[in-house]
């Protein structure tokens, strides 16, 4: 499978975002909270992307904000994936009551809109990063559960799984040695999508004032801080918005590529 142009761009941009997040303290021209200019200064040689509501350098905040945004999104997607796929596989392999109970719990969780659940949960719990990650991860795991269950339902009836069961292998063994490797490709593609949704979800929560709390910064919170300038043509809020969009697009491009790669692996004519 050759690397397409769009996938190449996606990988390049994603790598750039991740690297700048990792090396934020080395790259950022100014510290996170230092006031270096006036309110909403236009981009200049000194502040490449201008300054924000209280005169902090936007580029520096974007780089540090990327750290938080990417970390929280990644961590919560990992939680969503571990939880969702494990229980999804379990439901598929055991079937019967286990499947019924798990599926109905997920139905229950999905039946209440997640912004509302997040609003309620986050107003009860202390607002810090671990709580935020856990809440997003658990809420998001329901979707992964659905996918993992559907995918592994197909796999669970395959001959080689039956064979393993007849051999007397334990359910955990079946899940990790037979189902997981075969369900991995669609799950990896889904991981990309979940990551993007996590980025958007954190941004939305921060926008509602329930996400990442100051003095930490994330991109959604930065949009919120600067949004009032938008209708006066101040570009400050557009920078973090563009960063969210750019990250989402580049991860999407990679996910698309992985997805098309897996379909061609299945022996289709390719798309």
């Amino acid at each position, binding site marked *: 499978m050759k690397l397409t142009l769009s996938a190449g761009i996606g990988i390049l941009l994603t790598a750039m975002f991740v690297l700048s997040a990792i090396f934020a303290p080395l790259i950022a021209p100014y510290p996170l909270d230092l006031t270096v200019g006036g309110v909403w200064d236009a981009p200049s040689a000194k502040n490449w992307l201008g300054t924000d509501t209280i005169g902090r350098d936007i580029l520096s905040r974007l780089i540090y904000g990327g750290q938080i945004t990417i970390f929280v999104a990644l961590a919560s997607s990992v939680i969503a994936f571990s939880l969702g796929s494990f229980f999804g596989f379990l439901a598929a392999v055991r079937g019967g009551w286990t499947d019924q109970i798990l599926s109905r719990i997920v139905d229950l969780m999905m039946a209440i809109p997640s912004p509302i659940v997040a609003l309620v949960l986050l107003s*009860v719990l202390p607002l810090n990063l671990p709580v935020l990650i856990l809440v997003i991860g658990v809420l998001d795991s329901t979707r992964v559960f659905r996918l993992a269950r559907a995918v592994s339902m197909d796999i669970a009836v395959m001959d080689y799984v039956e064979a393993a069961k007849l051999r007397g292998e334990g359910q955990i063994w079946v899940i990790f040695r037979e189902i997981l490797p075969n369900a991995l490709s669609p799950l990896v593609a889904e991981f990309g999508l979940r990551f993007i949704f996590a980025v958007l979800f954190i941004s939305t929560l921060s926008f509602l*004032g329930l996400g990442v709390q100051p003095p930490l910064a994330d991109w959604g919170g930065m949009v919120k801080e600067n949004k009032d*300038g938008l*209708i*006066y043509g101040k570009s400050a809020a557009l920078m973090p918005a563009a960063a969210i969009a750019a990250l989402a697009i580049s991860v999407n491009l990679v996910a698309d590529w992985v997805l098309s790669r897996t379909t061609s692996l299945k022996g289709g004519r390719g798309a």
Partner: protein
Amino acid sequence: MQDEMKHLLMRTARGTFSRRGFIARCGALGISAALANTLIAQAVRAEGPKKGGLIRAGIAGGESTNSLDPALAASEVPFVTSETWGEMLVNVTPDGKVDMRLAEEVSSSADASEWTFRIRKGVEFHDGKTVTAEDVVATLKRHTDEKSQSGALGIVQGISEMSYEGDMVKLKLAGPNADLPFLMADYHLVIQPGGGVDNPAAGIGAGPYKLEVFEPGVRIGFTKNPNYFDDSIGHADQVEILVINDNTARTAALQSGQVHMMNRVDPKIAELLKGAPGVQVKSVAGRGHYVFIMHCDKAPFDNNDLRMALKLGIKRQEMVDKILGGLGSIGNDFPINAAYPLFDDTIPPREYDAAQAAEFYKKSGHDGSPILLRVAPGAFPGAVDAANLFAASAQAAGIPLQVKLEPDDGYWSNVWNVEPFCASYWGGRPVQDQMYSTAYLSTADWNDTKFKNATFDDLVLAARGELDEVKRKEEYSKVANILRDEGGLICPMFNDFVHGVRDEIGGWIDDPNQELMNGRGLVKTWLV
């Protein structure tokens, strides 16, 4: 040429000559269109109130949980709503005088412990019933009742006996109070037929507008009350409140003309909004203040040296500049500013002094463990930034002040008045006595600094009954100094009320009492 201009301008203002025609004429005379528009606006305003039309206000501070019961009004929209359909005995004028509304005349006994209000004759409620002294007493009783949930309960509790005779209402107080008429101007005390006992949320009053539509958290619509007793206010045929809590949407609605006035312009954008066409920013110095409060009875804040160290460790001007965007004034650790009658402006403002703060801190013998300042974003706008600034300046003086972030939700029940040190705000009161007796007397219902000082209490009570203004001012000066030097209140700033008003609105007056011309912005303005 000048005469021609004046003549044309007058005709334009009266609507007999077209705006476009006037601007074109100005262009011919070398006057810019912008200036021409300003000239028209000025001329139109000078023409006096115009009747008719529909005025809309975009107001932040309303929820779908709001009630029409004036006793329960606690946020901005319910306040403006009851000021529009309701009428009180008296109002307070922008310069701090009593404005007679349903009462025509107020008098008191020599020691200010007995007050008499004569009720205006022939005023009707919206349902056609006549306003009587009986209704007034019933209303006050509803608010003072043991079972009442009224926000005015604490205010009217000092009335020990109320009675009426003919058109006179007599109030006997538990102790003398020279400010009683001001207390009657409280926005909860809307006079309702039969006191509103049967249906407190009926929305029937004697105000300048009748309630037409009530969709809590969305919009409240009114039509003119044709039988209103005072012709000098209530100009538009219809007025409407749109509840717009989002700052950006509210500002956009003002700029696009969807609303004529708005409250709570974010200080950040005030400068930008000034540049927008057709819009003016009206910033009014009010009595509201943003504060950090310490409980004087809990360690380590029971030590006055520590309290003083913290008071000296805050940069007040920086707060005003950065948190209020310059739209406000510095506070001096007592809750009174120049917007109050009898304010003593000779008390020197407290300055940031790291050396002195460090000295007081050392003297307090504090063990150096972190001093936690609790704050939530909703404590007041910019509260978290303000707390961080405070922590930075205090740390520079060697005080281990740390900010602890709390969630907005439940802040007023779990943190404020519970934790010993947190951020809060006060909206201010019409007179000094009300402010002090609401929050700083030992017996005050909302003594959120747990300040208990007998000398202070005696002075406040003495000033309350004092009818001699000179003496009273001296007493209030002493009161202020005690609180400033010993109290648990750190008051770094007084915030302005910042409004956005479109050019079409005439009759706007800066009123320090409350936002939106003391809640009567829709009632007292007109469309030009």
